[in-house]
């Protein structure tokens, strides 16, 4: 049944019909009609951020911690351009977002009108799809299509650009059930023969490893359950990318820790020396593979991915399987149980023995201090004191992010929100706000660096406005630590612009926003201070003063292979400065 209403009414009705409860946004001239409709209803709650970039990251945190589509609403021109970083971030990390942007009236488009920009042009390469709605009668269909495209297949961000005159015009509304997309129908169920081949290969493995990624988390909680069942059934070791942490419990014996540039020794060596690699929902990113031509040279590779373009993009797959992780794992389990294959237990035992010898190297070990707080120690204590609570962790980007990934363990998916693909500094605080909104009773901590946190510090105001008790745990070393680490590795320790000479007093900054500010600079005081942070009712900035020159190890220097890792304990400054060769220097 078509009903007539204004474009702005259609937007609100469509959001309500999509079950949207929260949207993150910032008003402006070109979205005023939508904000007026928002004012006159109660189903959709709007969260006013302090900069549009914050709205997008908050929507990402909300989406990633709930599995729902995150929604943002911004105005034309600068509103839309400020959204670009968040859209690109969501595209890289496959986060479902719908971003509605206002646009100047149709007759002014192309006239360089006030606050006009070519939003669909600018956001075309950083969205899954985008629309400029020129006819109000297309609006409802496009919004419902947008939600479908954001979450179907490999999830991602979409933009709907709505000129102001279309928001005022009257047109027909159609409900979500009347929408069927004519071209976009991604495959979710796997090819049965490919699954059977994969099961045969897995059963014949002597040195297998599971390598899983964000695709398992994106697929939903069922995929994680099935993964756990399958991995335990086989008894094989498992590692995961940064994006996939939590899909498999870190406390389990079969868990090797994260792999990749700052992954564990045992995870990377297992990848290098395996004979069968079972990639489920990961994309062979350059942070994982290191040097491509030396990547796991002796293995046959199974690659499960919902996106056909991920297959053979970086690494050739011997058995590609296109499909949603949950469907694929379900089918794999079914075939495995039906075949009940005999695995080579003796080979597996000696493979585990080898892995245990790598584990014994304790690659995450660091030299602790009684005088300074080591950043690794801070993350460890934060984990120990929060692990029995209902905790969600977000991060910014840099050394603190890698330490958090290494030392904070996750038992469940959707508990870890970080900017993996794009590496966006300033992601963590707004993301934590989105997470806290979705989980008001939980403990939400943004593990931050002193440089990153300043990139979206204005969102402290948002947390206060909506009574969101997020905790920001800053590992403060006064440096852009990861930049400094790379300058040490690559550029003769010339620390060009990576030292922040004028940091704010984070305690006073917190108080200025109406937060609680805390500072700790001694390891003996750390536990009590962390407890105090947790027990404080409102939002807290915790300025944790850590050792200034600590570096993040282990590390695969760029241009090197998995078996050429630098381990932290015994690496000299000399080795660090020579670790990356001429070829590696040009890489990021």
């Amino acid at each position, binding site marked *: 049944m078509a009903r007539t209403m204004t474009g702005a009414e259609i937007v609100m009705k469509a959001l309500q019909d999509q079950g949207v409860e929260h949207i993150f946004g910032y008003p402006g001239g070109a979205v005023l009609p939508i904000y007026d409709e928002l004012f006159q209803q109660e189903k959709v709650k709007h969260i006013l951020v302090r900069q549009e970039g914050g709205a997008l990251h908050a929507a990402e945190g909300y989406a990633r911690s709930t599995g729902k589509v995150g929604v943002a609403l911004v105005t034309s021109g600068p509103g839309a351009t400020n959204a670009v970083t968040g859209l690109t971030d969501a595209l890289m990390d496959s986060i479902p977002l719908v971003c509605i942007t206002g646009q100047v009236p149709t007759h002014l488009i192309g006239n360089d009108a006030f606050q006009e920009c070519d939003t669909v042009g600018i956001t075309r390469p950083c969205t899954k799809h985008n629309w400029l709605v020129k006819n109000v009668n297309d609006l409802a269909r496009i919004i419902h299509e947008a939600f479908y495209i954001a979450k179907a297949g490999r999830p991602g961000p979409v933009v709907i650009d709505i000129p102001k005159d279309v928001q005022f015009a009257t047109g027909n509304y159609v409900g979500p059930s009347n929408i069927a997309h004519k071209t976009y129908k991604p495959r979710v169920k796997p090819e049965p023969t490919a699954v059977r081949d994969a099961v045969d290969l897995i059963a014949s493995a002597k040195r297998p490893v599971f390598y899983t990624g964000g695709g398992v988390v994106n697929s939903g909680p069922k995929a994680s359950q099935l993964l756990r069942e399958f991995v335990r059934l086989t008894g094989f070791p498992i590692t995961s990318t940064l994006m996939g942490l939590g899909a498999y419990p870190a406390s389990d014996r079969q868990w090797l820790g994260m792999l990749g540039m700052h992954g564990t020794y045992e995870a990377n060596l297992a990848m290098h020396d395996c004979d069968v690699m079972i990639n489920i929902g990961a994309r062979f990113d350059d942070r994982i593979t290191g040097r491509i*031509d030396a990547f796991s040279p002796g293995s046959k590779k199974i690659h499960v991915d919902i996106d*056909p373009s991920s297959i053979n993009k970086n690494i050739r797959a011997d058995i590609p399987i296109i499909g949603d992780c949950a469907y694929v794992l379900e089918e794999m389990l079914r075939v495995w149980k039906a075949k009940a294959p005999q695995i080579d237990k003796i080979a597996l035992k000696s493979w585990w023995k080898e892995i245990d010898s790598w584990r014994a190297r304790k690659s995450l070990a660091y030299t602790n201090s009684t005088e300074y707080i080591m950043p690794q120690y801070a993350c460890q204590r934060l984990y120990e004191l929060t692990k029995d609570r209902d905790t969600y962790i977000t991060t910014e980007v840099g050394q603190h992010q890698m330490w958090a990934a290494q030392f904070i363990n996750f038992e469940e998916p959707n508990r870890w929100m970080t900017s993996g693909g794009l590496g966006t500094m300033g992601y963590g605080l707004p993301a934590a706000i989105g997470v806290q909104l979705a989980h008001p009773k939980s403990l939400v901590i943004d593990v931050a660096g002193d440089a990153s946190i300043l990139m979206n510090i204005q969102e402290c105001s948002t947390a206060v406005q909506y009574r969101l008790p997020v905790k920001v745990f800053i590992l403060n070393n006064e440096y852009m630590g990861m930049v400094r680490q790379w300058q040490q590795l690559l550029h003769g320790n010339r620390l060009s612009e990576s030292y922040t000479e004028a940091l704010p007093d984070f305690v006073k900054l917190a108080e200025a926003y109406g937060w609680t500010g805390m500072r700790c600079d001694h390891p003996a005081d750390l536990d009590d201070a962390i407890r105090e942070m947790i027990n404080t009712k409102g939002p807290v900035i915790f300025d944790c003063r850590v050792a200034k020159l600590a570096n993040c190890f282990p590390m695969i220097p760029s241009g090197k292979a998995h078996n050429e890792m630098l381990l932290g304990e015994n690496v000299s400054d000399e080795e660090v400065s020579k670790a990356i060769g001429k070829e590696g220097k*040009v890489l990021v």
Partner: protein
Amino acid sequence: MINTNPQTHYAGPALRQEVETRTLSVLVDNEPGVLARVIGLFSGRGYNIDSLTVTETEHEKHLSRITVITRGTPAVLEQIKHQLERLVPVHRVRDLTFEGISLERELALVKVAGKGEKRIEAMRIAEIFRAQVVDTSLEHFVFEITGKPGKIDTFIGLMTELGLVEVSRTGIAAIGRGAAAM
């Protein structure tokens, strides 16, 4: 440093493959921005376009057909196909070269100016190539020529000697042989 291995941004020896030329036929919804999406994909991911033609082919269904001639190693060509298929308004992508010898035609308008013997020679060659004269004065011809791209290249090459002024080419339109549609 120049990365001699386009397979990966990691320098050094990896699998080396020969560069091939392929003709892709892409059926898309004729909606605003669809061409920009396709072209943006090629430029954004560093793929080559040798020739590109696009126009609406089925008006009632709002369908357009884009013909792209592209170059790359087999691995890159496979990526191009998958990346195109990932675009929301794309219905189908067919690699016409991979599926057999496709029909490929192009049209060119070739302006030649000159007098005397060269002018007569230009006309004679145009007849051999079955090019039509579509505009003329006492000092110039505009020829319309259709055919395979190689034929047009040869014709233009000959005209260079005989007073070639300028050329406009449509780019290649291609279609698969046989009774079936893509």
